[in-house]
C-alpha cells in the first residue's frame, strides 16, 4: 500500500526499551556487521526518510520524523545517527533511539566520508531512495571506491520477524480492526468517504495507534486513493478503503469494501482470498489476482511478486470486478513453513 507522504510525523515515536529492548537490536547489529565483513566494508550507511524509515528503524529504532536521516554503522564501536534539523533539535531526536551519538545531518557527504576514513569501503542500505544529488556527492567523494549495496542481503533478514515484532504487528492489527469498523460504520451512516476515512484514523489513534492513514475510492467500487482534497467527500456505494495503521513502528494494512447490498463480486473476492490463505506457506506463489506485499517497519518491504518467505508478514489482497466496480477482501498473515497464521482479516 502506498500512501501520500506527510511533511512531518507527529505521533509517539520515542524509543521505549520496555517495548523493544537493546537485546532486540543487538542480534540485528551483529547480523549487519557480518554482512559488512562478507562484503569487505568497514562502514555502513543506512538511509531513511519520513515516508519510509524501515531499515533505519530496524537497526536503531530511529524514525525520520522531520526529514531524511542516516545511521552510520562501523564494524566495531558505537553507531552514529545523522538527523534532519538544527543542533538544537538533537535533544528530542535522541529520544527516538538507543543510539547515543545523534548529530545534525548537515553536510552529509563530508560527515559520511570522514566517518568511513581513507581507503575503507562504504556499504549502504536503503540508498536506492537517497536523493540523487546526495548519492552523487557521496559516490564522488568515495571514488574510486565503489559503494557496496547490502539491500539484497539485509532486506530478507528484515522481512523475517521476531516473536516480539509479531506481537507488535498483532497490536497494529487490533488498531486496524478499530479503523475498518469505524470506516464501515461511517459509510453505513451515510457519510462521505473523506469523513469515513477521518473517522477511521481517529478510531485507530484513540485505540492507541502511532499513526493511521485512510484512503478511499473516489467513485463507486474504485481504487482506494489519497483523500487530499475537501471535494473528495463523496457518498459512495460500494465504498472501498485502504487503511494503514502503525504500532511502535510496525504497520498493519488492509483493503476493505463496504456495500449496502454486497453482490457476487464480494463472494468471489472472499473465496479467492480464502483459497490464497489456504495455499499460503513458505515458497508458495499466490495465484494471479492476489496481491501479497511483505509488511513490517515499512508498508512495503518487497520484493513484489516473489514467493512467500517463512517468517515474513504479508498484507494479502484479493479483488473481483463486476460492472466496473471492484470489491476487495484482505488479510494480514504471518507465513510459516507449513502454512500461515492469520493476524487480521476483514470481518465477514
Amino acid at each position, binding site marked *: 500500500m502506498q500512501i501520500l*507522504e506527510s511533511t*512531518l510525523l507527529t505521533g509517539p515515536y*520515542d524509543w521505549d526499551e520496555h517495548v523493544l529492548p537493546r537485546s532486540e537490536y543487538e542480534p540485528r547489529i551483529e547480523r549487519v556487521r557480518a554482512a559488512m565483513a562478507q562484503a569487505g566494508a568497514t562502514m555502513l550507511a543506512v538511509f531513511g526518510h519520513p515516508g519510509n524509515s524501515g531499515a533505519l528503524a530496524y537497526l536503531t529504532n530511529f524514525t525520520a520524523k522531520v526529514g531524511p536521516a542516516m545511521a552510520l554503522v562501523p564494524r566495531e564501536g558505537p553507531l552514529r545517527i545523522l538527523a534532519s534539523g538544527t543542533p538544537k533539535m538533537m535533544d528530542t531526536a535522541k*529520544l527516538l533511539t538507543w543510539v547515543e551519538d545523534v548529530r545534525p545531518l548537515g553536510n552529509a557527504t563530508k560527515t559520511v566520508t570522514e566517518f568511513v576514513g581513507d581507503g575503507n569501503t562504504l556499504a549502504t542500505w536503503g540508498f536506492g531512495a*537517497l536523493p540523487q544529488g546526495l548519492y552523487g556527492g557521496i559516490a564522488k567523494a568515495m571514488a574510486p571506491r565503489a559503494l557496496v549495496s547490502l539491500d539484497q542481503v539485509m532486506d530478507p533478514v528484515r522481512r523475517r520477524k521476531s516473536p516480539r515484532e509479531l506481537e507488535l504487528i498483532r497490536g497494529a492489527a487490533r488498531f486496524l480492526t478499530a479503523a475498518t469498523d469505524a470506516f464501515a460504520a461511517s459509510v453505513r451512516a451515510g457519510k462521505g468517504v473523506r469523513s469515513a476515512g*477521518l473517522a477511521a484514523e481517529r478510531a485507530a489513534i484513540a485505540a492507541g495507534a502511532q499513526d493511521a492513514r485512510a484512503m478511499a475510492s473516489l467513485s463507486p467500487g474504485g*481504487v482506494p486513493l489519497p483523500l487530499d482534497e475537501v471535494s473528495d467527500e463523496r457518498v459512495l456505494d460500494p465504498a472501498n478503503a485502504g487503511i494503514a495503521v502503525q504500532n511502535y513502528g510496525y504497520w498493519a494494512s488492509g483493503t476493505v469494501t463496504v456495500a449496502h447490498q454486497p453482490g457476487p463480486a464480494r463472494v468471489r473476492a472472499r473465496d479467492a482470498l480464502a483459497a490464497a490463505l489456504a495455499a499460503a506457506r513458505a515458497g508458495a506463489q499466490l495465484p494471479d489476482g492476489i496481491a501479497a506485499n511483505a509488511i513490517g517497519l515499512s508498508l512495503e518491504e518487497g520484493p513484489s511478486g516473489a514467493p512467500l518467505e517463512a517468517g515474513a508478514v504479508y498484507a494479502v489482497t484479493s479483488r473481483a470486478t463486476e460492472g466496473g466496480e471492484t470489491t476487495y477482501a484482505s488479510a494480514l498473515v504471518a507465513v510459516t513453513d507449513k502454512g500461515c497464521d492469520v493476524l487480521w482479516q476483514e470481518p465477514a
Partner: protein
Amino acid sequence: MNRAERIERVLRRMAAERIDTLIALSNAKHHLARINLAAHLMGYRALAESAFVLRADGTQRLIITPAYDAERASLRQPEVPLTASDDLAAALAELLRQRAPGRIATTGLGAMPHNLAVRLLDIVGKDAVPFDDAVNEVTAPKTDEELENARKAVAIAEQAHEHMLAVGRAGMRECDLAVEMNLYAKELGANDNFLMLSAGPHQLGVGASSNRPLARGDVIIAESTPAYDGQFGQICRSASVGPASNVLVDKYALLVRAMTAGIEKIRPGATVSDVAGAIDVVMTEAGYEKYNHPPYLNRRGHGMGTGSIAPGDIDVENHTVLEEDMAFVVHPNQYLPETGYLLCGEPVRVTATGYEALSKKWAEMDSVKG
C-alpha cells in the same frame, strides 16, 4: 495569476534559453519548505514519482505513477493530458521517442531517488540543462487559487490553535496534543500539516513533538502549518501551561512588536533583507543584538510551499526583491535568555501597495490548563 499564466512565464523563459522540452520531475514529497517545481507547475500532488513535460509550443503532459492513481490525477487536472504508468522512466522514454525532444531542460532531478534517477539521467542525456533556478525565479508569485487556499489553510491553523488551547493541559503528552491538532485540522479540511510542537520550561529551540508530558510552567511552542489543497499556511504561537508570568508576557510582546516592524516593511520592490532587518532593529534596541543570530534563531520566516518556497528564508542576507502575490510567513522566532525559545509568526501576501495579513488574529501569549 492563474496556472495558465504561470505556464506562460515558464514558456517565455524556455524561449529565452532556447529550451525545446522541459521535464519537471517530482519525487512525491510535498513539503512546506522544500521546492517541488513539478508539483508547482502541474498543480497535482503525485502519490509517487511523476513528471510534467512541457514543450516549447505549449504542449503539456503529465506522467504519473502508480498507474492506479490515474483517477485522482484526472480529477485534479482534467485539462492536462495524462499518461499513467507503473514505470516513470519507461513512460518518459516512450514519450520522447514519439516526438523528438530537442534541447532538454530538467527540474527536480537531483531530488529524485537514486535508483530511478540513474535511469532518468540516461533518458534525458548528459546535456540536459538544469532549469530549477530559472523556473523558480519566474514562478515565485502564487496563483489566485493558491492564495485562496493559503487563506483557508491559515484559517484552519488559527482554529487548530484555539482547539489546542481548549484541549491542552498539564499531563498530556506533547505528541498526543500534536496528533489531536492534526486530526482536528484534517477534519476542517487540511490535507497535511507541518506541525512542529514542543514544550518545556526553558527551550533552546522548537523540535518535533516527543512523548514528554506537559508540565505546569512549560511553554508550548508550535509552528502550525496546515495545507489546504496542497498550499501550506503557517502561524507560529506560544502558550504557557498554567498562567503566563509577567516576564513571559512582556518578552512575547517584544517579539510581536519586532514582527510587526518587519511586516510593515512589506511591499513590492522592498527586499527580504528589509523585512528581516526591521525585526533585528527592534530586538537590538531592546538589548538583544547578541540574540539576532544563530544559534539563538534560525531565520525570521520563510516561503510557504508546496511547489515554490519563494521568496526563500526571511534573512538579512537574502536580497530577493518582493513581488506582488508572493506569500510567506514572518516569524521572529528566537531564544531569549529570560524565557527560552518563543514562537510568534504571521503569514502575509504581498499586495500592489503593501501586504495582506492572512491570519485574522495575530499572536499573543496564550495559556492552557496548568
